[in-house]
């Protein structure tokens, strides 16, 4: 971690926008160097030869895990249960802020 990479303020704000996060001015400055430091470290993977190596998505070696035809979900919630943690509910549905005028 000798080299110091800094992400630009614009890059940080762009990432925050993609992830729908609000950052304080202090966090923006902190993340510029902290993310840079981490990105610098993880470049050590370039030292390894990965030609022809397949990617691993899951370690379980399980394939095509499916339900039988006609299987019932064990985990359906009642309307009351599904809505019990919502802040705003209207006519038995989640209420959200209008996004189009």
């Amino acid at each position, binding site marked *: 971690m000798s080299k110091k990479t800094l*992400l630009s303020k614009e*890059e*940080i704000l762009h*990432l*925050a926008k*993609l*992830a*729908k*996060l*609000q*950052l304080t001015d202090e*966090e923006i400055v*902190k*993340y510029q160097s*902290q*993310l840079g*430091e*981490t*990105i610098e*470290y*993880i*470049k*050590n*993977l370039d*030292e*390894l030869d*990965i030609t022809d*190596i*397949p*990617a*691993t*998505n*899951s*370690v*379980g070696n*399980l394939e095509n*895990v499916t*339900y039988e035809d006609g299987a019932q979900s*064990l*985990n359906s*919630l009642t309307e009351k*249960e*599904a809505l*019990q*943690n*919502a*802040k*705003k509910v209207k006519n038995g549905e*989640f209420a*959200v802020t209008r996004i189009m005028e």
Partner: protein
Amino acid sequence: MLLGKTITQLRSLIEKKEITSKEVKEYFLKRIKKFNPALNAFLTLNDVEDKSIGDRMLGIPLAVKDNFCTKNLRTTASSKVLDNFIPPYESTVTQKLKNAGAYIIGKTNMDAWAHGSSTETSDYGPTKNPWDITRSPGGSSGGTAAAVSAYLAPGGIGSETAGSIRQPASWSGIVGLKPTYGRVSRFGVIAMGSSLDCPGPLTLTIEDAAYLLSLIAGKDIQDATSSPLPIEDYVTQMKKKKTYTIGISDDYFEGLDTDVAKALQNSIDIFKKLGFKTKKVKLLSPNYAISVYTIIQRAEVMSNLARYDGIRYGNERTMFGTEAKRRVMLGTYTLSYGYYDAFYKKAQKVRTLIIEDFKRVFKDVDFIIGTPTPITALKLGEFSKYPFFGELMDKFNEPGAMAGIPAISVPVGLDRNNLPIGMQLMANYFHESDILNASYQFEKETNFFDVIKKGVARYRD
């Protein structure tokens, strides 16, 4: 009279009617009231009367990490985003424990969203290490580890993404077992890194770990990644006399504190005395696993935390703490256009190398020995000085986590500051029985140098 009794011993006492389930429950509730204010191990206590007394756990209380959804019992993952979240359903692990007759006595503190190795990123304040309350109990399952170490519960459940069971078990001086990925269902566990997350027991003895594993393991139709392989009778398997070959890789002995290194060498000598063989092996440097883990885990965190919209449940995304945001930001970076191949895809390929590396070595040896953490418990506040420090501290846990193999941490002594030291054994996929067998032999030989006994004795009734 009950102080320090294991789950196995409590079951026997209840069966013989020397004590009732109700008395056991009240005993632990009393101890929690007395000691929890100083330790901050529990966030929520379960005062709902549970009348089902299954004959396998007989109403014995367990401490459960607060990222397991418990129906009608507040579950926060130690984040204010979920401050008021009451799950409408039960996780498979807690459902299985309840079916066995266990009493979920309370939900324990953790690093928020399990992001951390110290329980300090909790939005509800850090948990204190029962051995020294100015220090961290480790994390992210620090609340469960502290609760078991101080005997506020005779056993508990944690979860691991990379080290979150082994490391707090080590720092708090108890037993922590991380099973093979897929051995225990993830259904209803608040997701962190979905290709890594793994529930497991934290206990006072190997027998208790084996017993709890037998209760929570197995195929679950609600978790497609759970394994269909049959589960074993871990307690019976554990007690068969076997000898094994232990692999020693120099990379796993680098940068250790001198007391930790000494205790590990002593442990190797004890295994030799038990008739075990040792063999030098060469594994890929753990430094690569740090990078693979950092890339893949952050990517999965970013994806898993995207669901918290504050609409269906929970509070708004403005409530995320600085560590969660940092991880989401990095995950967003490595998955974004132009960086996907350079980071994420590359990490997935190196993950394959790590898996092949372990498979190769496990043709020659049964275990790889090491420690979950190169140093003993840090003072509270030390971690936050170095944001990437947690990953470096977990470097010995990350290779096994990336491969999804099982591992255990057991106490092997105290350092110069009277703090517990942990040893870890890693094994091939689904060899939990062998890990438990070797650890049980070690326990019978050493009684873990009385570390667990001394830890409990610090918190008299």
